[in-house]
């Protein structure tokens, strides 16, 4: 049990160190979130417009600048978490493969990445919510933070998927940026006349956008829409998991009857004599189909 905890804590600590040394992402968090949300708040008209919120069925009178600010916060959070996870996956996939081949349990590596993603998303969502509250007061700030958090999780998982599949860094950045722009621009009734189209409900941050809008302008709790967003996260995470599994697998199959590899102590001298022969039971095979 202690071994499992050690594997998990070590991998989580190093995953967090890796994210913390992504200076560009930290600059984006510090500057991009307040810049984007402030500009959206200041530049858009503050005249109220009527819109129907699907999540509650209510017709709300929302200020255009406040709604665009929410959309901007979602855009910023999704871009940052997507970028951070993409960068870590893109640069680290061969290292993860080497670790897995050396015997590091892949389950613990995956859990560590998910934990790091959750922590990053929580920090970024809390910061974006705090910045939002400086300009105006959403009716349910905690729900806004939860919506931003779930959207961050989803794009983080998408970033892992893109990082596993795409071969060039610029391809991944473009994929994340375009996905987020299409996703959010189509949902904003101020920017898109098609925001009421049924197809909108299939977009990756539909649940988060509905929940965030409810958080801003309604007193109704909308847990089902956070659930929709978490479903999107689960699907994206499953795709990321399959990609990770494929990119870190070994072709060597351990043959029966001894499926365990022999652990070393690392304490003996490298140059101490070894028994020349070993039991065939400790052999590992790879066989082409």
């Amino acid at each position: 049990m202690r071994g499992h905890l050690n594997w998990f804590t070590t991998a989580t600590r190093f995953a967090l160190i890796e994210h913390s040394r992504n200076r560009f992402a930290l600059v984006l968090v510090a500057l991009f979130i307040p810049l984007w949300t402030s500009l959206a708040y200041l530049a858009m008209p503050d005249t109220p417009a009527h819109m129907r919120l699907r999540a509650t069925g209510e017709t709300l009178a929302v200020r255009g600048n406040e709604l665009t600010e929410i959309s901007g916060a979602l855009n910023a959070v999704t871009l940052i978490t997507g970028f951070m996870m993409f960068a870590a996956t893109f640069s680290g996939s061969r290292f993860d493969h080497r670790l897995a081949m050396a015997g590091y349990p892949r389950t613990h590596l995956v859990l560590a990445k998910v934990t790091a993603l959750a922590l990053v998303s929580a920090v970024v969502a809390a910061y974006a919510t705090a910045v939002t509250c400086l300009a105006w007061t959403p009716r349910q700030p905690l729900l806004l933070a939860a919506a931003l958090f779930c959207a961050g999780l989803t794009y983080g998982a998408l970033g892992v998927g893109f990082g596993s599949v795409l071969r060039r860094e610029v391809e991944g950045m473009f994929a994340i940026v375009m996905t987020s722009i299409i996703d959010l621009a189509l949902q904003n009734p101020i920017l898109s006349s098609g925001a009421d189209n049924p197809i909108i409900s299939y977009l990756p941050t539909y649940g988060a956008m509905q929940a965030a809008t409810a958080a801003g302008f309604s007193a109704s709790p909308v847990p089902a829409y956070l659930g929709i967003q978490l479903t999107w996260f689960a699907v994206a995470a499953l795709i990321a998991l399959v990609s990770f599994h494929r990119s870190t697998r070994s072709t060597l199959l351990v043959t029966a009857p001894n499926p365990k590899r022999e652990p070393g102590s690392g304490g003996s001298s490298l140059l101490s004599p070894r028994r020349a022969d070993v039991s065939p039971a400790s052999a590992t095979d790879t066989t082409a189909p």
Partner: protein
Amino acid sequence: MRHAYRRRVVLRGIDLRLRPGTLCGIVGENGAGKSTLLKILSGELRPTRGTVRHSGPFGYCPQHVVLNDTLTVRQHLEFFQRAYRLAELRCAEEVMAVLGFTGYADERVGVLSGGTRQKLNVTLALMHDPRVLLLDEPYQGFDWDTYQRFWDLAARLRDAGRSVLIVSHLAYDTERLDELWRLDGGLLRLDEAVSA
């Protein structure tokens, strides 16, 4: 074993047995399939046809360094200590001392020179004291002294009963080897002059 990338056949029929206590080299021109062979032996790549059998733990040093630039040397050692389930790091410290980069333990890998990164790349393959070592161009970027010390280490490992397989595009220092194989046209040929 055989391997092909789509229609391009790289390995046509490789049959190699690496005996304990042997320092073995495989040389070949660029693109001959040396790294492909080592990737298959290490389990990184599945051969089109054939079987690989390992008699115990092995260490694999890939041709291109596979490290995490954001972590320090010491953090790499800790990460792989967990992976290999090692109680301590004496072997790693021994290899670091031989290769002469103990003083870089707390440096972040991203700021290290190419040669020092390669030293860590090699150390990660040796630190669990494996029975078999698969080393792909292990001394690239080494200065002359480190290069000499590397060969001394390889010979001492061989003398202690480990099997060491070194792949290189250059057939220098063949007198240090017990066996030399040439990979040409997808086939391995034993160089009788060296291996006699």
